């Protein structure tokens, strides 16, 4: 149930290592190299662009129930700023819309 498999631990440590490299290299590297503002803007946009790249194909291939529930999540998160409430409403909405479909 709660064991640690060596392969999984290795992947997790790989993730931890590359993450630490990104966190430390701003301190270390940028004393030696100058990033252009253009490149900075590109790095800044990366997480959002990647999240959208995950979402777009999911939503395109999803049915109307998933799309509508996605809209519910968006509105609740935007209005309340409450992550768990938005997720809870989304799950409730998808169950409701699927049962209607």
């Amino acid at each position, binding site marked *: 149930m709660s064991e640690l498999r060596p392969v999984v631990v290795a992947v997790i440590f790989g*993730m931890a290592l590359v993450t630490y490299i990104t966190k430390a290299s701003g301190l270390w590297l940028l004393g030696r190299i100058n990033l252009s503002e253009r490149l900075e803007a590109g790095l*800044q946009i990366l997480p959002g662009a990647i999240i959208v790249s995950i979402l777009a194909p999911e939503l395109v291939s999803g049915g109307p129930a998933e799309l509508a529930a996605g809209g519910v999540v968006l509105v609740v998160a935007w209005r309340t700023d409450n992550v768990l409430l938005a997720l809870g409403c989304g799950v409730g909405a998808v169950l409701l819309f699927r049962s209607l479909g």
Partner: protein
Amino acid sequence: MSTDSVETHQAGETGEINGTVDESERTDEPMEFGLAGLRAGFIACVPVALGVAGYGVAFGVLARQVGLTTAEAVLMSATVLAGAAQIVAVELWEPSIPAAAIIVTTFIVNLRYVLMGAALRPWFSRLPPLQAYGSVFFTADENWALTMGHLRSGGRQGAYLLGSGLAIWMFWVAATWVGAVGGGVIGEPSSYGLDFILVAVFIVIALSLWEGRSSLLPWAVAGAVAVACAQFLPGRWYILLGGIAGCLVEVGRFDE
């Protein structure tokens, strides 16, 4: 991590010239690194960390759904400490464990930390390396923003990032455990609508990353490229390709 030394590099005696930004700005006062800063950062960050915990619970549930054990999910939260990247990793996770895709994508999603670390340089370059490089492990979006606020408003507590980061870390790890244990007792995810949580989490994260109309074009390109690549390419590489396309759009249109 109980270092109380006060670092006093000799720095230029030139004071700040009202608001004019200079390369050596604000590097003329010694930094402190002690319990006071640790405590101040921790306390300021607790309300924020409570919000982060919401993502942690979701991450724990999702991690169990894709086959990670509770211990593995908690280990990932404790050692990686990067919310969006961890949730993306779980999205990529399969029984065959595509290690290369997971680690490369983690790196790309986290590249923004390079910028955040760079922003800390004027202050952190004056701390001893162990304090500076130990503290940056605890960088997350939320406590970095708090720390920058502290430093820019004249604060000199070098341990602020560590203190606020410890608050994030504790809530993130604990929330992961709660989510993983809770997620583990749930049977078939789709019968509870839980297969939808991943999409829902990404929608919430996307909303938090939205920076107004300037996000629209790069995001639209990223989405379109991802949808097109998902049709024609095997595996999950469309995620990186879409992200890189959005990034290139942003780089290309800069200073328009």
